């Protein structure tokens, strides 16, 4: 079924009896060409691009719970491509371009809103660093715009530019950045993949890998064994737990990141803003809630909930630039589990086991990468060579000293 304005009107006039399920509920087949573990945004996108771009078939996505119930439904929905390093920026710009055509491609309203993202500048040194990053973005085909305080004041009159400790001295804007309705990304990819014959199998947890003579030939699941020519792990947040079943240790720690939503307010925040002197980022959802977050809690966790010191720290960051935030009440807060890698960048690579592939280590930047992550992972699965924008995301970059460390923090995952 194709979704369209005409279809909405027709259904409205006929009692909405013609809408079917957006994807089939299927039982697992005994064998597939591709088994993708993880029915989050990245896994579903991988399945979609494998089927649509790389013309592969016999594809299954295995999800232990329900699709979109993990981090794709727990993030702060921001999209952007404002990275510095060569290993990252072409990939994230590729992702932003895919976001721009996503809804037409999927025939699904994912509410992609290019409302712009603004990184605030508070010191002269920070301005130099942001100018450099903006130039790197432009060199890679992205857009970047250095704004003066007066230009910022015009768009965001409520920002506290005169804070004695953290004065706002300008900002680096990416006008093509913005937000996307995160759940709709999972649903849109699921529906589009399903239409191309992908089996989406929910409530099917992988309990082990079938590995014979160094080759992965399938997976054990709570719904029986499934054979596969290629098995693709795509479970960021739980990567270490999954890959342990294949005997692998990863350059990853799992950390909890908290996010917050205020009560619904009238429209006041036209774009995404980030505080440069602490760690705070905020946008306003279409329902009116201010969606914001900050640093990870900083210790290994699988608990999907954090502690109060970080809540205080995030809210202090918000209050420093945005004093009226103190008048809004918090409606919800929650935590999600991040694969924090050793250099702050992801891994999309073959493993040392033939037929077993890995995609993870997204730190807390996975949502914006969803389309490109799926695309390049599909490329790797179909061709056994990395996509041109993802050649740096290798396992062996740590041993070879080829880290992609945007913040220059070294192998301390909780600092990335």
């Amino acid at each position, binding site marked *: 079924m194709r979704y369209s304005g005409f279809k909405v009107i027709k259904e409205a006039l006929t009692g909405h009896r013609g809408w079917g399920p957006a994807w089939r509920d299927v039982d697992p087949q005994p064998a597939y060409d591709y088994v993708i573990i993880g029915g989050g945004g990245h896994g579903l996108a991988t399945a979609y691009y494998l089927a649509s771009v790389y013309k592969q078939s016999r594809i299954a996505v295995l999800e232990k719970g329900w699709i979109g119930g993990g981090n794709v439904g727990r993030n702060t929905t921001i999209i952007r491509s404002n990275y510095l390093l060569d290993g990252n920026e072409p990939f994230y710009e590729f992702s932003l371009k895919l976001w721009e055509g996503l809804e037409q491609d999927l025939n699904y309203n994912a509410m992609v809103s290019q409302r712009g993202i603004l990184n605030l500048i508070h010191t002269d040194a920070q301005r130099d660093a942001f100018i450099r990053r903006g130039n790197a973005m432009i060199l890679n085909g992205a857009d970047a715009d250095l704004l003066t305080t007066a230009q910022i004041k015009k768009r965001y009159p409520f920002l506290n530019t005169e804070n004695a400790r953290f004065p706002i001295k300008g900002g680096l804007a990416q006008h093509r950045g913005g937000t996307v309705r995160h759940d709709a990304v999972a649903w849109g990819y699921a529906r589009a993949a399903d239409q191309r014959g992908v089996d989406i199998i929910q409530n099917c947890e992988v309990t082990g890998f079938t590995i014979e003579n160094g080759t992965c030939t399938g997976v054990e699941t709570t719904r029986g064994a499934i054979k596969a020519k290629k098995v693709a792990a795509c479970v960021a947040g739980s990567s270490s737990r999954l890959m342990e079943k294949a005997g692998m240790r990863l350059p*990853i720690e799992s950390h909890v990141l908290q996010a917050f939503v205020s009560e619904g307010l009238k429209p006041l925040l036209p774009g995404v803003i980030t505080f440069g002197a602490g760690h705070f980022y905020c946008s306003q959802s279409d329902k009116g809630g201010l969606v914001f977050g900050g640093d990870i809690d900083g210790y290994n966790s699988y608990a999907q909930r954090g502690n109060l010191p970080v809540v205080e720290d995030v809210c202090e960051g918000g209050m420093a630039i945005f004093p009226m935030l103190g008048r809004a009440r918090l409606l919800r807060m929650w935590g999600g589990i991040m694969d924090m890698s050793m250099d702050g960048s992801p891994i999309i690579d073959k493993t040392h086991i033939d037929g077993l592939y890995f995609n993870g280590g997204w730190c807390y930047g996975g949502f914006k990468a969803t389309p490109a992550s799926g695309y390049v992972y599909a490329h790797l699965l179909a061709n056994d060579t990395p996509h041109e924008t993802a050649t740096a995301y290798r396992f062996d970059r740590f041993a070879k000293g080829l880290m992609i460390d945007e913040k220059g923090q070294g192998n301390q*995952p909780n600092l990335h």
Partner: protein
Amino acid sequence: MIINHPLLGPRDSAEFTYMGDARLINRPDWQADDAVAQFTDYGYLRDNPAGAHRELWFHEGGDRSWLVVTRDTTTHEITNVELARDVARAEGRSK
């Protein structure tokens, strides 16, 4: 989280800096034949379990001691706190 410091009693975890897996106490032998491979594993690979985890916490906002805390990563419950010095000495790391 409250960390029950062996010398100072219960302290807020916000006084501490988290430094990761306590296996980092066991720095490899730099003279071993496979020292490069050992240091690559030591520097970059982690067990990252869901459940009991022994980890290093540095009391940066306090007495600057290093602790080995055993904590459940699925509940954040802390079951044991030791001085890292005692742990290292028991493993023969420090003379």
